[in-house]
């Protein structure tokens, strides 16, 4: 549900880059932490709808979800995890804190070369 707001910010950032390079964007790659709870289909749909009749119309979007990271409070190991029962792969402790989610980044844009 929050994908529409993300798509608005994303389109603004892509449009600004398109203006800077004076080229039509064909594809964009973004990355974000899994805790952003971005649904790929919803984000692609929102971007497609917002980009209609703009220079970005038809842009393809690739989304990379970065894993959740946790720090073990017993042995200080930093490890990747899913949010199902979490245990430290090194010492087996279940006492951990989540590290901040990687930010939502516009990584790369591919432009049409004339």
């Amino acid at each position, binding site marked *: *549900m*929050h994908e529409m707001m993300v798509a608005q910010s994303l389109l603004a950032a892509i449009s600004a*880059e398109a203006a800077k390079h004076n080229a039509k964007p064909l594809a964009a790659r973004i990355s974000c932490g899994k805790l952003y*709870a971005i649904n790929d289909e919803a984000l692609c749909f929102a971007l497609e709808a917002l980009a209609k009749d703009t220079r970005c119309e038809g842009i393809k979007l690739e989304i990379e979800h970065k894993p959740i990271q946790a720090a073990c409070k017993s042995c200080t190991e930093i490890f990747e995890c899913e*949010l199902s029962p979490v245990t430290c792969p090194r010492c087996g402790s279940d006492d951990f804190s989540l590290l901040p989610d990687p*930010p939502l*980044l516009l990584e790369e844009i*591919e432009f049409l070369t004339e």
Partner: protein
Amino acid sequence: MKVNVGKKILSANEEYAFRNSQFLTERKKLCLNMISSPGSGKTTILARTISELKGKIKIGVIEGDIQTDIDAERIRATEAPVVQINTNGACHLSAAQVSRALETLPVGDLDLIFIENVGNLVCPSAFELGETNKIVVLSVAEGDDKPAKYPAIFAKSKVLLINKIDLLEAVGQVDFDIERVKADARKLNRAIEIFLISARTGAGFAEWCGWLAESVRSLQEA
């Protein structure tokens, strides 16, 4: 032609959240961002909490709703200062909206600020508002599988309030295993504080309000 950009997309929200956090920390104000499904009893919990702590802790409320000010009216009846934010369709509050609300609230006179987020267990958990802590509310009628199905908010919260526990005894037909919820929540977050409450009967409010009073005191004395 491929161009590397490396630009943060939600940096505007992060900046506002950082500023809100600074604003609250400098003034030693405890700010709790309350997140739950619709109908879990957030507003009733707040109204009862304000009444129970009247004369001891000064509480202000930022009310987030998609539309209407029904909840703000209920808080206003307790005489606590309240600011309503209508998100007009958006499924979560943003840090910029909270920043404007903090300008309207008489923050200097308050000890504790509650943010009642839009009823939704998913989206609000991804948007930092600058709060001191998140608290998640789960009512027994929603089912005991919620920590397993919506893990992010349980992993990020300081407190879990299990509300409407009076239904378990009164109706006796609610399949809700409290021990399962506690165990599932602690698998995601061993330090999470769990209170069993009923905002209708007042059960568990002595412990919950005691925790609030202690948290306000330790923040102010820090």
